């Protein structure tokens, strides 16, 4: 699965995107965020406070209980600050 990172999530994790093989039990956005924390210290640090980690699936904002499907484009980012 393709995971994109933006803004300070990108700089903290150190890459703008990565492709991961999800374990079978990771079936929701919330489970994905928890699982990503185990990948490295940088991931754990960047994702520590899930209140400021927002998620989009296929370019739509989604809540943490949103289910994941193979082929989804998943993006993690801080609250947006445009305008």
């Amino acid at each position, binding site marked *: 699965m393709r995971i*994109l990172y*933006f*803004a*300070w999530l990108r700089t903290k994790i150190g890459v703008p995107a990565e492709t991961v093989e999800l374990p079978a039990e990771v079936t929701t956005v919330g489970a994905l965020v928890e699982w990503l924390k185990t990948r490295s210290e940088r991931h754990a640090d960047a994702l520590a406070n899930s209140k400021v980690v927002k998620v*989009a699936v296929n*370019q*739509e*904002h989604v809540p943490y209980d949103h289910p994941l499907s193979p082929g989804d484009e998943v*993006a993690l*980012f*801080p*609250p*947006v*600050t*445009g*305008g």
Partner: protein
Amino acid sequence: MTVRVQAEDFDVGAEYAALTAGRTSVGGVTLFAGLVRDIAGGEAVSAMTLEHYPGMTERQLEAIEAEARRRWPLDEVLIVHRYGRLEPGDQIVLVATASAHRDAAFDSCRFLIDWLKTRAPFWKLEATPGGERWVEAKDSDDAAAARWVE
């Protein structure tokens, strides 16, 4: 095309003219332009870099436009948002609506900018004397957007 995401600057006069050209059904145009300020949170800002999520940005702005058109009778809607490096005084965003009626033009224009601020995937990085810092989302922006929840 009434939603544009671009690095280039935009010309408010030309955009306004395009919104109203040849139309005699428009009673009012409301327009809001957001600019880079030289101070934020009490600190001097020498530059601002806007990052965005290509693809999702256009998709979200189009959804915001569609929602505005669903809620108000609008002749025209325009959203232009820049990304990349900007300096104080530079234009960031332009939202504008044209309608037969002034209330519809005002309400829809404010709706566009309020929703954009909480939904369009842009992030601001400010350069200050103390270094670069990512702008934090404001509770007041969430409150402004919440006014429009139906």
